[in-house]
């Protein structure tokens, strides 16, 4: 029986596939999913909303706080509160929006 020789430079197939699986799993969870969710959220209300948001700064700002709002109301309120507190101009814009 001829013995099969394995290259000294290669790892067993099982180890190789395990490492590839760990790599893809980690990258999938930590990089791919956040990226996908950005696009999903951007197009959630249709392409029309996306273009309006992309085209106009005021809408872009409001939509971004809508996005945070969908994540969690508390966090969004925190962000909005913080933003208004820091910049006087922002307060004016926010009031116009709510009016």
């Amino acid at each position, binding site marked *: 029986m001829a013995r099969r020789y394995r290259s*000294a*430079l290669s*790892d*067993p197939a099982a180890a*190789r596939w395990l*490492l*590839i699986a*760990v*790599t*893809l799993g*980690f*990258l999938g*969870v*930590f*990089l*791919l*999913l*956040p*990226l996908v*969710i*950005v696009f999903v*959220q951007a197009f959630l209300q249709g392409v029309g909303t996306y273009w309006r948001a992309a085209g106009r700064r005021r809408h872009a700002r409001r939509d*971004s706080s809508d*996005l*945070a709002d*969908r*994540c*969690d109301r*508390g*966090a969004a309120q*925190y*962000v909005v509160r913080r933003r208004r*507190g*820091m910049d006087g101009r922002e307060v004016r814009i926010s009031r116009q929006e709510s009016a």
Partner: protein
Amino acid sequence: MTTAILPSAAAMSATAPAPAPSASDTRPPRGVLPGFGISLGFTLSYLSLLVLIPLAALFLRVAGLGPAGIWHELGSPRVLHALGLSFGGALAAAAINSVFGTLIAWTFVRYEFPLKKIFHAMIDLPFALPTAVAGIALTALYSEHGWLGAPLAQLGIKVAYTPLGVIIAMVFIGLPFVVRTLEPVLEEFEPQFEEVAATLGASRRQTIARVIFPTLVPALLTGTALAFARAVGEYGSIIFIAGNLQNISEIAPLLIMIRLDEFNYGGATVIAAAMLILSFAILFGINVLQAWSRRHG
């Protein structure tokens, strides 16, 4: 055995010592390279303008508060908790990144698999993505109704608005540092060393643990230190997923912002100085470890 066959990393780090001046030479000793004075002057003034003077101003401001003022700010439980979370979280995230970053770098350099190029290009995304976008994306993902948050919540694990969420965001922004510093070292690693180890009777596991891994340690420490430093100072991507609850998930950089909002500049500078000193101590420790690993690798 290992020291004899260490390739580039160790060799590159060894800088050539300046030649010893001969006894008969009356001039002050000079190195072989000309232009020492002007390059030192340029380095120092550049470093002063960008780093030393701003930092000195910070410490001057802190010193102006006096010991009582400093203690009043630093001793508050809220500040201590924020510092603990920032540094503890950053250390945990750096540790996670060092393990997974090494595995990922190894997989990318050594193996072929479908969509490898796309995944490889994705590694740098945390650098390119605005941190606020990353923060919102992570929050959407890990909040209780998110794609990952909902199943985790059923298991009783809450990620968003907890310290765990802070660590997740820190892992996200630190990963590229470890992968990108390790990749070139792994790529330059000569296959002969592995073949020699194999002909000398080393098993594959021994080869990896005693021949390959020691050459990676300096780069791994560099990458881990960079990931740690970035995680400690990170603000944008963390504040969304952290929820910023006092004494639970409030990080030190945010507390500095809050102090500035309150016009409490003294308080802000005290926290900043504490972060600087702690960061410097930890980075210095990593540097010492790195120098040690180069000598004993």
